[in-house]
């Protein structure tokens, strides 16, 4: 019955990523990333949050323009809601890679050096930088996820870059792009 209903649906709107096989590929690539992303926000049940984000995305009747950005944004919102339901939601990825709160399971996936460098950055810049460099999202997508203008995202990334350069070459000349 369920398969029949799935068959009855138009193929174009079957999944936000296109055909079912394409959805499977996208899910395989994005699901571990989203679980890790939720864990970095200190979510107690990151797998549940990532799965819920996928269900919310596919449940939508109106098509989503940028599904990847939508998934990241939903995971971020759900994680923050789970962590502090009654408090201000407007916070950055402050706990990324902080000792004791970071995702222990993913530690071996990043070099210790990378973690140390990220840890020294301002929390506000860290979040934008993480999404841009590690998650590989575009400026526009990051702006959509964080609900901030694209120019602000760029500014944060450039400032993060300046901070990194400062760490690598303290007192040396700044090579701001």
């Amino acid at each position: 019955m369920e398969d029949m209903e799935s068959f009855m649906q138009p193929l174009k709107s079957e999944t936000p990523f296109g055909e079912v096989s394409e959805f499977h590929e996208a899910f395989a690539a994005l699901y571990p990333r989203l679980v890790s992303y939720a864990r970095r926000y200190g979510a107690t049940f990151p797998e549940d949050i990532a799965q819920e984000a996928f269900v919310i995305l596919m449940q939508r009747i109106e098509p989503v323009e940028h599904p990847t950005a939508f998934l990241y944004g939903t995971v971020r919102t759900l994680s923050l809601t789970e962590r502090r339901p009654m408090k201000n939601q407007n916070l950055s990825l402050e706990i990324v890679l902080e000792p004791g709160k970071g995702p222990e399971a993913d530690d071996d996936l990043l070099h210790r050096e990378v973690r140390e460098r990220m840890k020294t950055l301002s929390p506000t810049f860290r979040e934008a930088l993480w999404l841009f460099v590690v998650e590989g999202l575009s400026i526009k997508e990051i702006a959509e996820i964080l609900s901030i203008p694209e120019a602000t995202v760029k500014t944060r990334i450039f400032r993060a870059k300046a901070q990194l350069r400062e760490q690598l070459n303290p007192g040396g000349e700044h090579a701001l792009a």
Partner: protein
Amino acid sequence: MPSLDTNRIQELEEDCALRSELQGLLGVPEQGFFSAEVTPELVALAEELRHEANRRRRVARRPQPTWLLLAAGLPLAFALVGLGTWGIQQKHRADALAQAVEAKNSEVQRTAAQAAQDRQSLSELKLAVLEKQPLKRRTGSRPAELVIPVEHPAATQLGQTEQVKAVGR
């Protein structure tokens, strides 16, 4: 990260260069460090989530009982409002009719009282006039006559009458 959704924004070259530069600064490998292998477990989970989304979508589309109740109650509400309006109209009409009847009654009573008064004054007037008139005038100028048919034998012709003088004359 590989382009997963077809609508993904094409990045500018300078953004790609910036990412590469930052990856170099951080020491992040350029290739994604998460495996994108499509395992049967992941496919099963993806399908489960897809079915769950479809189920929720169907539930969300189903009309809510509140709306159904509202829709069912709407004709009843209209009927009640109509009935109420009609009742109010009828009450106004009845009030107007009662007022008219009351006015008519008072008019009739007033007329009757007037008529009684008129009759009374008329009779009084008549009495006064009669008292003032002399007896002769009252009896009239023409002498009253009493015609009594007299029965005669068969020989007597029909229509033969005898004139007698009035009593007391």
